[in-house]
């Protein structure tokens, strides 16, 4: 029985306690009490599920709203800054615990970027991709910490005939604020476009959208008196410009896509956890916490990974790609 890590009697007691907790919370919860027609005592009744989509303002600083998601994101920033400050303060050749943790994180991301972007561009992408990944993943994982999103002043709201209580949390999952995801998406977008303009030159970068060179070639044909190839080149040049406009539009749609992907996933996760806790208060939400841990990690990876992939697409222009293939 040594495999269990405790004596078998303790194991049995634990299982019984967990089962009892689960069953009582199921029967006393809104699902069980409806199903079995039980009158739940008033102290045990769970108030109606309340979902607040915009974040609540905690206090004001000179007309500027300080929302609970903003406070939550400050906590993330302080946590990450202090972690990496203390990890890199006294660096040694043989790292201590904190330093080796930081090394594992940064080295892992470094290797992933090297696999996608190649050794030439690693240093370009490492800072911003690592920052986005760590910020999003810390925001997502901190939201699963107990008291996060539940601890705060209770407000009684009376709406018509029925009244209910609403908790306004001091700390709320930062990723469930659309302003935060929009700002990260804007940073990512500006970074990608800046890379495109600075690394391969503004004219070459725009040319990778519109392919003006084919239009120019057709005019050269016109002066040579080659009417047929001028007409076809002229036509294809205009089609290329139209395609380029669509491609520029798709770059702007990336912002929307980035924003709503993260916001939607995180908000859906919060609502899922809320609903599960509302239906069965104990034990049943645990697997969903596991799922949310995975989703938070995956979404951070997707946000950072898509920034990386789009950035790589921007620094390797279409002509270079063609040259590689030929």
């Amino acid at each position: 029985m040594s495999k269990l890590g405790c004596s078998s009697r303790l194991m049995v007691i634990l299982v019984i306690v967990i089962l009892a907790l689960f069953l009582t919370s199921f029967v006393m919860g809104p699902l069980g009490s409806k199903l079995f027609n039980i009158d739940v005592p008033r102290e045990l009744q769970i108030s109606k599920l309340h979902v607040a989509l915009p974040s609540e303002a905690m206090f004001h600083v000179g007309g500027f709203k300080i929302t609970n998601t903003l406070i939550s994101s400050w906590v993330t920033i302080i946590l990450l800054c202090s972690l990496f400050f203390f990890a890199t303060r006294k660096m040694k050749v043989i790292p201590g615990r904190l330093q080796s943790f930081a090394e594992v994180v940064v080295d892992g991301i470094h290797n992933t970027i090297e696999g996608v972007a190649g050794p030439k561009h690693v240093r370009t992408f490492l800072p911003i991709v690592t920052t986005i990944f760590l910020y999003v993943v810390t925001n997502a994982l901190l939201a699963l910490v107990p008291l996060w999103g539940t601890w705060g002043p209770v407000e009684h709201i009376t709406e018509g005939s029925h009244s209910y209580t609403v908790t306004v949390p001091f700390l709320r999952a930062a990723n469930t604020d659309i302003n935060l995801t929009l700002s990260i998406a804007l940073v990512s977008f500006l970074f990608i476009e800046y890379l495109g303009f600075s690394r391969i030159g503004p004219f070459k970068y725009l040319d990778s959208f519109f392919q003006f060179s084919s239009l120019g070639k057709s005019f050269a044909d016109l002066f040579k008196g080659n009417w047929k190839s001028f007409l076809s080149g002229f036509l294809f040049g205009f089609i290329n410009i139209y395609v380029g406009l669509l491609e520029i539009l798709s770059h702007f749609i990336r912002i929307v896509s980035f924003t709503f992907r993260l916001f939607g996933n995180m908000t859906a996760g919060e609502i899922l956890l809320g609903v599960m806790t509302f239906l069965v208060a104990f034990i049943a939400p645990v697997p969903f916490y596991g799922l949310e841990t995975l989703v938070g990690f995956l979404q951070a990876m997707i946000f950072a990974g898509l920034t990386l992939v789009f950035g790589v697409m921007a620094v390797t222009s279409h002509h270079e790609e063609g040259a590689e293939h030929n």
Partner: protein
Amino acid sequence: MDAETMKMLGAGLAAGLGMLGPGIGLGLIGLGAMQALGRNPEARGVLLTNMILIGALTEAVGIYALIVAILLAMVV
């Protein structure tokens, strides 16, 4: 039917029908990835990264439907 009922019906339909397309898409991505993995097991790492990336792009479409549903049900 009053306005509230229609709104709730719209929210349910938006979520349900909106998830239909991404669901099929994710299934196709999984199918393609598994087939590729079966033919070429060494390419696991590359396949996984690409699969997750395209899965994220597909999933975003479903998330739009979810946002519409949440907006209909709770905000508007």
